[in-house]
């Protein structure tokens, strides 16, 4: 006599035990220290912080370790933790103009006040495997003339803005919506779009931004300025009546200068796209700026060319990798009840067709 499969509980326990074992890996190699992940896999931690939308390098390192290096899984761990945290309030807007830059480049000007600062970048490395690292050796660290720019640097966009060459962004005091507290509704304003893009999956943002460069919603971007560095976060404490600095974070900011708009009545001006992300995550920040600009077609009076990157509902509804991975992977769950009903229908239709 057939007995229906039982033992879901036991199977789950066994699977978890096995998972813990393979996470640890070979017992003969040293246990990975989360401090090592935090300090040596910094860019992985940065991505987890940016898309997890929680700035905490230690927790990001923990999540990467627990997730066996699966960054989307690590982001998921961070998000699920983040959502349980109490909210004390909102910080004052950070001032990226006052940033202590470790990297600052502009592609629109040969030189800008304060200069070009390459910083720690892969850009001009030759992508050759370094076998010294394989042997767990380290090339001797050369003396570097390390320069961080402590003086506030004028933004390239402000320089262009002075001559009205760049379209000004309206300033406002209204509180922006909060994507994590209010369901996303369409049409979404720019503040909401930027929030969504800032925590969007890097791969999705990258490839969609790339599609705009290949002609699907082209907007002719130049990197007006890309800066990476440290900014202070301050918060107004109602009991005190003034704001205090509560910490310092590293962020990447990208402003693109894009094709101009204008008419006979309105003189031509460049427009801009904006990207801001936690940590040193410049690929994402640039992609974000391109997408931000593509999504602004309506307010800038451009044509809807039907490009995916111009479609806010399409972009924002599919940018979140935690939503995407959950729904994609849920098809692993049993669906046999639904499949059974389809099976019966197909059998019946086939039987009818044969008659």
């Amino acid at each position: 006599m057939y007995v229906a499969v039982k033992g879901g509980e036991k199977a789950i326990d066994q699977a978890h035990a096995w998972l813990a074992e393979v996470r640890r890996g070979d017992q003969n190699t040293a246990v990975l220290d989360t401090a090592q992940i935090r300090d040596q896999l910094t860019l992985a931690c940065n991505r987890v912080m940016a898309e997890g939308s929680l700035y905490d390098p230690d927790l990001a390192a923990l999540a990467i370790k627990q997730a066996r290096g699966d960054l989307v899984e690590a982001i998921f761990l961070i998000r699920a933790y983040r959502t349980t945290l109490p909210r004390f309030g909102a910080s004052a807007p950070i001032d990226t103009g006052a940033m202590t830059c470790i990297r600052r480049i502009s592609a629109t000007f040969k030189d800008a006040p304060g200069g070009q600062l390459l910083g720690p970048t892969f850009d001009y490395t030759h992508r050759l495997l370094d076998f010294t690292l394989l042997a767990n050796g380290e090339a001797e660290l050369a003396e570097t003339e390390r320069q961080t720019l402590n003086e506030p640097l004028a933004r390239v966009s402000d320089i262009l803005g002075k001559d009205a060459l760049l379209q000004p962004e309206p300033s406002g005091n209204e509180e922006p919506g909060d994507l994590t507290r209010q369901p996303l509704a369409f049409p979404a304003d720019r503040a909401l779009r930027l929030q969504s893009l800032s925590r969007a999956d890097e791969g999705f943002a990258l490839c969609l931004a790339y599609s705009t460069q290949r002609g699907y919603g082209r907007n002719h971007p130049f990197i007006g300025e890309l800066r990476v560095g440290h900014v202070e976060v301050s918060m107004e404490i109602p009991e005190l009546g003034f704001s205090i600095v509560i910490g310092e974070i590293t962020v990447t900011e990208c402003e693109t200068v894009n094709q101009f708009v204008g008419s006979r009545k309105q003189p031509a001006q460049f427009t801009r796209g904006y990207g801001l992300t936690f940590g040193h995550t410049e690929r994402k920040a640039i992609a974000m700026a391109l997408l931000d600009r593509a999504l602004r077609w309506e307010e800038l009076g451009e044509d809807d060319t039907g490009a995916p990157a111009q479609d806010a509902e399409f972009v924002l509804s599919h940018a979140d990798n935690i939503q995407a991975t959950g729904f994609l992977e849920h098809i692993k769950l049993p669906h046999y009840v639904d499949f059974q009903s389809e099976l019966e229908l197909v059998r019946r239709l086939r039987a009818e067709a044969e008659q």
Partner: protein
Amino acid sequence: MSAYNFAYLDEQTKRMIRRALLKAVAIPGYQVPFASREMPMPYGWGTGGVQVTASTLVPEDRLKVIDQGADDTTNAVSIRRFFEVTAGVETTTEADRATVIQTRHRIPETPLQEGQIIVYQVPIPEPLRFLEPRETETRKMHSLGEYGLMHVKLYEDIARHGEIATTYAYPVRVGKSYVMDPSPIPKFDNPKLNGSPAIQLFGAGREQRIYALPPWTPVKSLDFEDYPFDPSRAAGQCALCGSTSSYLDEVITDDSGGRMFLCSDTDYCARRVQEGA
């Protein structure tokens, strides 16, 4: 787990979800947007249902969790365990003893009663989604009651296959107003939605929507006058309890095409076996 609140969610979040639930119950079939939270299980695995259940549970509740009708499928086990740990409520497999039932893809065979709450996990709450992908447009269609397109789909089914070829997530009309997705239950279960004495709550976490059917709400499966809705199931009998009226799973028993049928509702089946013994 003491670091977490009763049933995982903080009280502020629960209040937000309860407000959405009240609105949903007040406007049967209307999809209420809510600020769905990231949960410690993936989107698409019941985060909407879990948030609704978490906001509904009180310490005195008795919870039943099923997936595909069964209490012992892995996802049902995982969600039941989650609430055992985070809420410490009593759990049960018996449909008539449960005060709250969270389900994926089935409605229990045992008729629901007054005072019970059933929570459905919903992947895609929008019945018009695959006819019109745009949220801005489907919301307008709902608000204007423009459901002609839904029938165009059913018309196309009949024209092509000779019958309505939707077998699960079969759309329903709530009273005389909203067209609603009943979640991916087989159409066999659709009649149980109609006039149910229980409160029926639907949660879609990833899509950030909650909707509801208050007790005794009339619910009609869409159809044509000359092609009426047919909730039929395959002719067959459960190999364990002998039921000829329950929804059956087909189980392949060997590699030469041998198969047998078993009740999908494990609680219903086990009790029939016990009573018969």
